[in-house]
């Protein structure tokens, strides 16, 4: 924030300056943080190597909870990605104004979240070195994957999604990287020159780029629905009570947007605080993100109610018991925690005061992320724990290896995002400039009533 109250709103140069400031060589604290993240990643990798060497016995998996934390992490990260795509692609198509300042961070989050998620199916395999058997590749035994299996659909869905979201991210970056290139020196200059793919900012380039970006956004948007549905089918296509539900597609989509919005909030609040971006990321932006959070929370609550209603309405005996165990069983605390955080707390966002309070949003977004993680764990292990044969019930408890790998996945994600934030334009200069009028309005409404 400028020291004296500005008379006119930010200019193009102001935007360039602010964003380029983020990309200046980082200080010591930054490197400590990045080193911390990648140390945790190294520990997790060590745990994984040990797991590959000794077998899945090092996990807390058992009969009947054959899936647990690893699949939870997979679903958690893939769902997080969806919210990023929603903000960057869907809101682009709708020409939403507040999107411009936040979308790049959301898009980066998507890319890294999918990259994190994609590792988990491998970690979870009993014999991960044979993972490529999931792919249809020509081989002399004519062995192909079973296309009836939701896991094969999953393989396709996730790899498609990973490709699209990375391409979309890179595409959007081109003009901004070129912008950074113009101001950079030394190795950065070389790096940005390569990364900007020869962008020179001609009218023709802008025209093609805009069209390509629009098309990519159009391609990415349906993936929000399709990938999320396919992931939900990993469960819904089973007959396990608590999984075998048609609501799982929308249920997972609502959850995805909810947890993703929360993660975008967390990331942006940290970014704003550490990089002094109050001018670019205003309360107006956070207000809108909070509204998205509230909306998705309501949608999720509706899904919860639907699920309970359907169980009651169908009177399926297996489902009823499974649901009962979810509410009152030995691990019922997970359910009640989720209800409190996902359904009740976000209702506070009906008040503008909370929507615009950065500390409230920060705490809430962290809580939502935690509880959404538990929600997936509850859905996955809870249902498996109490399926058809009561003699074979059993409740899951995580092991050290699983916990370390989970922590490592968070470290991996945050480490990658931290690197991205300081070496790539984490806020889109291009789009901010396009919508500079809206930014000025936001600044006027929120901070400087005297602004022209």
């Amino acid at each position, binding site marked *: 924030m400028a020291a004296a109250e500005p008379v006119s709103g930010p200019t193009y140069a102001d935007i360039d300056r602010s964003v380029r400031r983020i990309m200046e060589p980082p200080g010591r604290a930054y490197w400590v943080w990045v080193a911390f993240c990648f140390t945790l990643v190294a520990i997790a990798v060590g745990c994984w190597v040990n797991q590959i060497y*000794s*077998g*899945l*016995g090092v*996990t*807390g*998996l*058992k*009969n*009947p*909870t*054959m*899936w647990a934390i690893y699949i939870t992490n997979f679903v958690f990260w893939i769902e997080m990605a969806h919210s990023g795509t929603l903000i960057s692609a869907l809101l682009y198509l709708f020409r939403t104004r507040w999107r411009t300042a936040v979308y790049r961070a959301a898009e980066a989050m998507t890319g890294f979240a999918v990259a994190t998620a994609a590792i988990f199916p491998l970690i*979870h*395999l*009993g*014999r*991960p070195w*044979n*993972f490529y*058997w*999931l792919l249809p590749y020509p081989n002399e035994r004519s*062995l192909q*994957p*079973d296309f*009836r*299996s*939701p*896991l*094969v659909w999953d*393989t396709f869905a996730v790899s498609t999604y990973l490709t699209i979201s990375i391409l979309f991210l890179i595409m959007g970056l081109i003009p901004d990287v070129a912008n950074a290139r113009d101001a950079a020196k030394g190795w950065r200059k070389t790096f940005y020159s390569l990364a900007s793919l020869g962008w020179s900012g001609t009218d023709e380039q802008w025209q093609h780029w805009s069209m390509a970006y629009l098309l990519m956004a159009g391609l990415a948007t349906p993936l929000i629905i399709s990938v999320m549905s396919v992931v939900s089918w990993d469960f819904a*296509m*089973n*007959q*396990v009570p608590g999984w075998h539900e048609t609501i799982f597609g929308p249920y997972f989509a609502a959850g995805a947007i909810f947890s993703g919005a929360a993660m975008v909030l967390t990331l942006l609040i940290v970014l704003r605080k550490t990089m002094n971006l109050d001018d670019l990321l205003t309360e107006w932006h956070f207000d809108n993100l909070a509204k998205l959070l509230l909306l998705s929370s309501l949608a999720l609550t509706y899904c919860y109610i639907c699920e309970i209603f359907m169980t009651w309405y169908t009177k399926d*005996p*297996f489902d009823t*018991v499974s649901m009962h165990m979810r509410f009152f069983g030995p691990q019922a605390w997970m359910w009640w925690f989720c209800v409190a955080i996902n359904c009740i707390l976000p209702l506070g966002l009906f008040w503008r005061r909370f929507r615009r309070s950065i500390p409230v949003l920060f705490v809430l977004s962290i809580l939502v992320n935690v509880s959404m993680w538990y929600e997936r764990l509850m859905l996955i292990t809870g249902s*498996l724990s109490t*399926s*058809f*044969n*009561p*003699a*074979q*019930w*059993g409740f899951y408890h995580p092991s050290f290896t699983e916990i370390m790998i989970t922590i490592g996945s968070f470290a991996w994600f945050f480490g990658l995002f931290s690197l991205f934030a300081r070496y790539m334009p984490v806020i889109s200069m291009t789009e901010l400039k396009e919508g500079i009028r809206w930014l000025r309005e936001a600044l006027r409404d929120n901070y400087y009533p005297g602004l022209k």
Partner: protein
Amino acid sequence: MSEGFSRRSFLKLAATAGAAALPGCEPAARKLIPYVVPDENVIPGVPQFYATSCTECGAGCGTVARIREGRVIKLEGNPANPIGQGTICARGHAALQGVYNPDRLRNPMQRTSSGALKTIPWEEANKLLNDALKAASAKGKNRVAFLGQAHQGPTLRKITEAWLAAYQSNRGIFYEAITDTPARDAAEMCFGRRDLPVYHLDKAEVLISFGADFNETWRSPVELGRQYGEFRAPKTRQGKLSVGYSYYVSPRFNVTAARCDEWVSVPPGAEAAIALSVLHVVLSQGWVSPNAQINVADLKNFVSSYDPASVSQRTGVPVKMIEAMGERFGKADGAVALAAGDDPATHAAAYVLNAVTGNLGRTMEFLEGAPPEPESSSNDMVSSLESMRNGAVDVLFVAETNPVFSMPAKWQAAEAIKKVPLVVWAGGVPDETAAHAHLLLPLHHQLEDWRDTFPRAGVHGLGQPVMQPVFFSRPLGDLLIASARESGVKGAAPWENTQDAVRSGWEKLNPKAAKTDAKGFWVSSLREGGYFEPATAAQVTLNVSALKTSPATREIPKLALAAYPHPFLYDGRGADKPWLQEIPEPVTQLVWDTWAEIHPETARKHGISKDEIIEIRSSEGAIRAPAFLSERVHKGIVSVPIGQGHSEFGRYAKGRGANPWEVLKAGRLCVAVTIHPTRERRELVSALYEGKELGRPIVEAMTATQLADGVQPKEWQEPEAPEPYEMYPAWNYPKHHWGMTIDANACTGCSACVAACYAENNVPFVGREGVNNGRIMSWIRLERFFPQKEYEHQPLMFLTPMLCQQCNHAPCEPVCPVFASYHTAEGLNGQAYNRCIGTRFCENNCPYKVRRFNFWKPEWPEPLNYQLNPDVTVRGAGVMEKCTFCVQRIRYAEITALVEKRPVHDGEIIPACAQTCPTNAISFGDMNDKRSKMMLRRVAKENKGRTYKSLKSLNTLPAITYLRELYNEREKA
């Protein structure tokens, strides 16, 4: 099975007889020889079968050992043997883990002065032994003692006695921790003879067991289990389709009780009073058989103080219950009372009950030419121990028994043995007694050795070595013969070796055959696994005059320890075998531990909570075990299985649980105790979560009346569902469609199928931790449920084998991304282990939860891995595995049929579980062949309305059809 000789039995016999080469005839080479120079009789990949005898207990079942490339890999029942009739129990199967036990003594060892063990050569060991023996016998008579197991078999007994004679001793102690002495005492009192009767449960329609665990360890469990299966099978009795009515009278609910109609919970030691009271009812109501020729007046005098009212007052058993038992028993067309326990009065009452109702000679009979009492009397044992303590014994030879572990604390066996200057221990896995020995000698296992058995009149089992010895061990008989010769006494042991001794005794069995064709008789006996002749029933009469005085029944203590032999570990001898440790005890479902089963009310009174370690103190000592709260014990007892609590005995037994022998009195399994909470806990480990079925149709039951009337039981009726829409076309099974019919009613909970599956399919054991972590690997398990409160009329316990149902619409198949789980053309749910990448999706989607995942690389410490079946892949870590109806056996038969250009016959393929089931509860066959025995069972008249599919509403279309459990409605007591 019927009296006739079934095709199944014939094929088994043919396979047995096909084996001509007899390994082990030569003086044994001392180690396994690698398969470099093949024997011309051995075709790699083709199994050989040798008939031999099981000596894991004294029941005397015959076994057929399957040998592959010179190693025994599987034991099955010998169909020619009249006791097992082609089946064996879990303990019989686990003999394999005895022969390949990694903790077996490998070489002779001597204890040095520092107490450490030193390997010595056999020559030195023999010299040490024989020199000491010579010195001892030179000092005088009876300076040498032999302590061995009672069920040695006649020849080994003969050799032992010859050896003792050579060293001028008569101190042969033949010890068995759990004896039939009370039964023999009672028989002597009632009938004037000390032998044990044989039973025909199948000829009865009412059965009362006074604490006899005939489905577990009592007498001859395989034979009695089979008979009980017949007893409980629906048959037309007195013009109506019905099942036998059975009572189990005991303070403890075990799997025998679970398979009866009523469990009469009595205070500890009150079985005799109930038995006498039932007799009172029978006599006073005049249900005495006219054929029995018994002086009723005298008998009435005998039971006069046991009228139901006063017994009811003493024991808390309702008068109505006692009267009903008496009435059913007296009126039945064939009834049998069985008795177990340490109180001769119970046995006497049961004998008299059978006799007065005319069932002597019908459901219970004594045979002429019964084997002599195998055990030494306890007086002999005590006096021998006393002489050891006094230094009157110089050499003690302990063979194949573990007195230090299982003798009552009062006898102080360890102290006595310590006083002997030279203690020679001979056996397999060094046990607590070996810890006190100076010289340890490795003995051949029963599968490496010549033996014979004589469990009952007319049954002479022959045991031949089925493979070369695994370690540097020697046969006990050879050792004793050689040692006896060393004594210098002329003609001390007139045999060359054990084989010679067995054979010379054998020729006396059938002198006529031996005279005409001695060799032929010998070879045919070897092929058949013994010589079996019909035995004549003895004419016995009840000696009423001996009963005139009223028997005194015991005081009922306020709180008693009711110890019982663990169904698989028995008196402790099974504890070194991991299969037996890992197979859950069917009622409690607990593994790898000792537990103290106690009523929740008693626990509350003593301030004891679940899994809390309690100290059980008797006048003899104290043991500690975690409490297992259960409503299935009498409030006046704490019930503890015998078998654990070893301080030696190999890695699988050592340091596990507690040893109840330490608190028991001589000859008793029940003792007054006090219990004390310790505030320490140890979690008891079970493979099972919930004991209630929650109304789900997993194991179903119906009453005998419903069966007779053709009415379906209400609690399992499902609403009429429309024909489900099928997305995929139905499977087509052009050749075969394998299926099973499992009679849940016939399952006695013996768990032989589980053990057989472990052996056949290389199923790894996972140990206590593994089971606790929910990773038990068994492909077949006994699914047990207790009825819920609202269904109290239902059977006492539901029990049925649960294994892969080989569904037509298998939920496991479409979810596998790589076709590791696939549908075979013969209807099996195949599992391609090499293709499996371990997504575990299949197990998630399996409603029966019968798939098992290898969380670790399975391990069989050498030489346990020698037992692995080469026909079955050993699965590595990260792979899902499951039951495939023993697909290796199916393929073997199909290929054989193909080579012989003929179709596969019904009954030619028998999966391991079905093969070993004593009650034939499991049958296997081709569902395309409507005339196969398995299919006929589903449509048999007596099974009408009994069939069900487990969890049918899921439309998985299992290939296993179950037949409902049957039970009689209980009177409301």
